[in-house]
């Protein structure tokens, strides 16, 4: 289940869905044609029982383990992350290819990156050889050979990054004892799951898009909320502010994913990881908490601008009078009905607003426009 290049083209043409829900296509509807009415009615009834992705809850983690749920969560909105992959769960296909159990599928992003790294190393090695030659000829004052080295160097830089796929070395298959235990009756066992982050789980559960199951049976919204945020939170709780920011940008149609690798809270993708890089990183800021020092801001900004992204400070602010906040919190504590609980959460979230500030390093003699 890898989004390959051909998938990308196919997905690009489609109107993309940002929620893992089943929709009914009613484009066949023609108001003055009674037959189309019947077709539409049938379609609505046939699709009337929604099948929600199942998320398992075990030892503090939320994850999807069956292909149907994984597919739905990943393809519709890019939720979750393969525990053994960079983002999309591609471990199964990758490993099958590595162990020569199946060669038919297209390359995953991890494999393409490995190829590029291999090429770059090869390029560096060749360049180093030329450097050594150049030094030798310079010492020997051998101008004819120097010119030849210069030509070779030119040719090397020209071909850099050209041969995209052809240069992968065919290596011997090496089945490690660690791999061997995963192969049963010649078939590879899938050990990868799609793990949802806490904010993702809470958001999807709040809007009723997933079923959560634990060993003790189904997990409702309130139970999930208590596992993730507890009920002792304050109006400026950083986990609460992160959740509010997450829900805010998801609601505006952004694909929001973890920004841990870039010293940020979230990354904002316009559509999703298979299509283009994230343009923005988000740092969720409260107003009352002590602000960071300028040195930290500029440190984060250096990381973020180094990967050509824009650093956005997302201020989640609220104007509560304390009694009002406490009353909602207490109602949440006493509430036993999940639907009511969802309404209380919606009420809580509606007291916050989200504003952005873009942090950008300004260089006087470069940024003239």
């Amino acid at each position: 289940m890898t989004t390959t290049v051909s998938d990308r083209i196919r997905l690009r043409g489609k109107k993309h869905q940002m929620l893992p829900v089943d929709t009914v296509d009613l484009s066949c509807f023609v108001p003055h044609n009674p037959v189309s009415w019947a077709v539409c009615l049938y379609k609505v009834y046939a699709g009337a029982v929604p099948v929600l992705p199942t998320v398992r809850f075990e030892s503090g983690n939320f994850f999807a383990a069956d292909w149907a749920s994984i597919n739905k969560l990943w393809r519709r909105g890019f939720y979750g992350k393969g525990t053994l992959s960079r983002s999309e769960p591609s471990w199964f296909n990758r490993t099958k290819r590595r162990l020569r159990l199946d060669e038919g599928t297209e390359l995953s992003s991890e494999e393409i990156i490995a190829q590029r790294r291999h090429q770059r190393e090869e390029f560096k090695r060749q360049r180093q050889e030329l450097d050594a030659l150049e030094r030798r000829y310079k010492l020997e004052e051998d101008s004819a050979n120097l010119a030849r080295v210069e030509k070779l160097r030119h040719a090397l830089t020209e071909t850099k990054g050209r041969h995209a796929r052809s240069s992968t070395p065919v290596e011997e298959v090496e089945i490690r004892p660690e791999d061997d235990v995963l192969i049963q009756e010649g078939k590879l066992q899938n050990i990868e799951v799609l793990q949802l982050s806490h904010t993702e789980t809470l958001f999807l559960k709040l809007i009723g898009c997933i079923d959560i199951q634990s060993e003790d049976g189904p997990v409702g919204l309130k139970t999930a909320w208590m596992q993730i945020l507890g009920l002792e939170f304050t109006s400026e709780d950083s986990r609460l502010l992160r959740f509010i920011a997450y829900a805010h940008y998801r609601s505006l149609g952004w694909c929001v994913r973890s920004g841990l690798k870039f010293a940020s809270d979230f990354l904002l993708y316009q559509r999703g990881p298979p299509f283009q890089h994230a343009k923005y990183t988000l740092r969720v800021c409260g107003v009352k908490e002590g602000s960071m020092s300028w040195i930290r801001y500029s440190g984060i900004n250096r990381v973020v601008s180094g990967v050509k992204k824009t650093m956005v400070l997302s201020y989640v602010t609220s104007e509560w009078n304390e009694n009002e906040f406490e009353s909602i919190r207490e109602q949440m504590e006493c509430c036993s009905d999940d639907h009511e609980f969802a309404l209380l959460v919606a009420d809580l979230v509606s007291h916050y607003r989200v504003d952005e500030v873009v942090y950008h390093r300004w260089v006087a003699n470069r940024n003239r426009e």
Partner: protein
Amino acid sequence: MSLMEIIAQNLVHFHLWTSIQTFPKSSAKGTPHGVVRGVPPKKLSETTSISSTGETESSTTDKPDGDTSEEWVLPLSISDKLTVENIEQIFESIRSVGSYRPKRIIAGLLDDDGSVVYYFIHDGLVKPRS
């Protein structure tokens, strides 16, 4: 799965490390979640560190069996906080379970979406790469 097992699985099946050995925190005292020893598929970047006496030495010289590619990974959760004193304890704890003090360890940070981010922690100064 415990945090240490998650990191160990990530090393074996994502990054293709071999010869993984885990030491729970009951034996590796002072570590928050235990420690993992293993061999990466390709040798990680060599570093030259400067010892407290001012002599430069290669990072791998004091490994007993001459196995130069062995690494130590310290599993951490995103909410763990480490002080310099803790890190010193962890190096010493590795000395007691692994019989030598490594020149560097690798912190493996686990986020709540299952992603693991790795960072080197060196014991002392490291010469910049040429």
